[in-house]
């Protein structure tokens, strides 16, 4: 119990003292995970819309792959991305390993299936006759998809929250492709693991509480956007 209380006190003290390193870690966590979430939204939501709205051969296989992908172990993703970005690997030329960009790529790989799968589910939860009605109203294909996406905006924002939640809290991939380098690729999760292994439980707890507070903050904003037009 003491550890938690001390952690809380430590967290507040660190935040208030304007600890440069801590703010750097917080900023990097946010930057990496928000960028990865945004990119996975750009990739995953059209992919999910396509899976939901366009019948094609092998669609069933694609859907089950996406569903499996929603539970990809970050460590496995980290390993694959590391191999890809390794100096002698296929993308080694780009010299991305142990940079924030590598972490963004890895987190994207984790979040894209989540956003795709939830977009698919969101669009499939709409009344299938709505598509017919929109077509009958003279909607082009693009207009129809746009209206359906707007109609599914509540579950789609849930998809964004789930994607962000998954990447800001993962550690395996960030550790492997980022390397937890002080001042460069250290984020809240990797720092927490390191402090714990060093026995600095109070500091680790402080970092964890800050991570939780960040998640609450970001999700509150998204929830506000989601619910503001929904009087009960």
């Amino acid at each position, binding site marked *: 119990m003491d550890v938690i209380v001390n952690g809380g006190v430590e967290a507040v003290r660190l935040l208030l003292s304007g600890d440069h390193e801590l703010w750097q870690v917080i900023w990097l966590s946010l930057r990496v995970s928000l960028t990865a979430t945004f990119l996975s939204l750009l990739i995953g939501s059209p992919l999910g819309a396509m899976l939901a709205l366009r019948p094609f051969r092998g669609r069933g296989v694609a859907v089950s792959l996406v569903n499996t992908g929603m539970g990809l172990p970050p460590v496995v993703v980290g390993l694959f991305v590391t191999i890809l970005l390794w100096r002698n690997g296929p993308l080694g030329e780009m010299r991305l390993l142990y940079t924030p960009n590598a972490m963004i790529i890895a987190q994207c790989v984790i979040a894209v299936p989540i956003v795709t799968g939830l977009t698919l589910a969101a669009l499939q939860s709409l*009344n299938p*006759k*709505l598509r*017919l*009605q929109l*077509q*009958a*109203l*003279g*909607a*082009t294909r693009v*207009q129809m998809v746009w*209206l359906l996406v*707007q*109609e599914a905006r509540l579950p789609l924002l849930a998809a964004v929250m789930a994607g962000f939640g998954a990447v800001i809290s993962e550690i395996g991939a960030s550790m492997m492709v980022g390397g937890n380098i002080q001042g460069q690729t250290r984020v809240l999760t990797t720092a927490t693991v390191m402090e714990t292994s060093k026995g600095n439980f109070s500091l680790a707890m402080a970092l964890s509480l800050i991570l939780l507070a960040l998640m609450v903050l970001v999700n509150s904003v998204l929830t506000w956007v989601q619910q503001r037009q929904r009087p009960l």
Partner: protein
Amino acid sequence: MGAILQIRNLAIQRGERTVLLVNDLAVERGEVLAIIGPNGAGKSTLLLALALLLPPTSGAIWFDGALVTSQSNLTALRRRMAMVLQEPLLLDKTVVDNVALGLSLRGVGRAERERRAAVWLDRLGIAHLARRQARALSGGEAQRTSLARALALEPEVLFLDEPFSALDAPTRAGLVEQVAEIVRETGLTTVMVTHDRDEALALGDRVGVIMGGQLLQAGTPEEVFTTPVNAEVAQFVGVETVAPGHVIAQDGGLAAVQVSGFVVEAVSDAPLGQAVLACVRPEDVTILPDVGRGLTSARNVLRGRVTRLRPAGAQVRVTVDCGFPVTALITRRSAQELDLAVDQSVSASFKASAVHLILRAG
């Protein structure tokens, strides 16, 4: 060509099964065509094909004189039509935004959108709901919104797919009347699908009967309801007495038909010896006390026993066994005055002109 829509040899298959096969059907400008038929008969499939929302497996559709092909710009053609389905299918927006939706998809400017939406909101009696969120509407209000959304497009053809069937009876009656009035006043070409005969009668200039994926009959409501082409159609349009027999005499348009021991007279040119089905609508049958002829000028007076009494709203459906079942629809008051009971002997009477003969083989 007067027809705005025409189809020829249209077939639609789902997997191996042919769900619709219509050889020839035209929708004339300004008419209201009511397509009726039981559930699963293919009515909605036909409507979707006409609305260019379901590509036919084979056959041809002409819209406004031009053959619709795979090269046609379907979206542009659909923008000349509008459709209202059984469910309102509104978007999660305000009522006025929903009504203006089709216009906004067509790139109509905001001011014009709102003007036209306002006209139809007012016309359908929901102007006061304009700023309300669509999800907060009752079933009737939502369906009015859906109708306003279609009408605001000022389409060349309006398609209605059972738009009233999910509504409660009073709401439905009011809305059917209102839509009938709007359609008459604007001269809007309308194709509606319904399984409700009363709706077809209230709205249709012409009625088409679809059963088992085939268009069995099309004509004025009068024609279809009094002279059905076969027993199936007869049953669906509410002809409750359908009895097989043979023509045993023919005298200048008055046929005598032998039906299980009784002779029924019918106004018909059916030749001597012809096998027929004698059809009588229940509204055309009168029930008399068991005193035989004399009380009526009707040609046919058949004696029999009451086998069944079923209340039907303000009326009572009486089935009398006259060697074959004859069903009459009479008022509750008449039933009380006659003191009707099962097993009671009565006479069922109907005019020769109320009997429609369907020719059959054998």
